[in-house]
């Protein structure tokens, strides 16, 4: 799989791992930082369970409302958090889905966070059980032989 379109960001925070992890899963905390500079928080809801949903609405400096949402795939406090991420085209419809994987490494009081976002591979394409044709070339060839 080509990785050139995967976004990876690594940061070290001067805070213990529990605290950094909780900043992502506690909605009152997340509301205080999740968003670019100059954006204000409109709402932030987090149901931090596997299969639970999150939704974030922000107001951009130009007044535009921006919504994003997703579902939690993996929650292993305080080490790992995996969720889907999609900007909303409108409140009822989410756009292209991406997958965000966060890993939290304990550096003895400090925490190294690695954020990995797979932008091109849809989650459906990644771990899809229904249409097994978009994962790899081998599976695709198999689908062509046996699927249609």
């Amino acid at each position, binding site marked *: 799989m080509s990785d050139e379109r995967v976004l990876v960001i690594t940061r070290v925070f001067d805070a213990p791992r529990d605290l950094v992890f909780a900043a992502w899963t506690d909605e009152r905390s997340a509301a205080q*930082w999740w*968003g670019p500079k100059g954006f204000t928080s409109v709402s932030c809801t987090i149901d931090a369970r596997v299969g639970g949903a999150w939704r974030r609405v922000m107001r951009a400096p130009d007044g535009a409302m921006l919504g994003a949402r997703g579902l939690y795939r993996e929650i292993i406090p305080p080490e790992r958090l995996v969720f889907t991420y999609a900007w909303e085209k409108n409140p009822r419809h989410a*756009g292209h889905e991406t997958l965000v994987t966060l890993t939290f490494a304990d550096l003895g009081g400090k925490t190294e966070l690695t954020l990995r*976002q797979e932008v091109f591979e849809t989650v459906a394409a990644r771990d899809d059980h229904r249409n097994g044709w978009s994962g790899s070339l081998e599976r695709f*060839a198999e689908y*062509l032989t046996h699927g249609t």
Partner: protein
Amino acid sequence: MLADSLSATFSALADPTRRAILARLSVGEASVTELAGPFPMSLPAVSKHLKVLERAGLIARGRSAQWRPCRLAPEALKEATEWLDAYRRFWDESLDNLADYLKRLQSQDKPR
């Protein structure tokens, strides 16, 4: 509508065969037969992929020539790359805010 076209672009690119087709076209235009060469699939299957790529605006196909050569339409890819950059900016700034938030939190006895 911007989101719609980006969505089409990313869906089209989610498939490794279509990415391989684009990689081939990045070195020059090609016919369907030429494109089908390296893949263990039929011409109609390749044509189907080309239609998806064409609908997403990632490739353009010649109108006049009977063999309708395919070539890369780089605008859509450029847009997708810009989208990736936008995500990077979004997270970079969010993580700056997170660092500030964690600092504030630890300088207070009780987080509000």
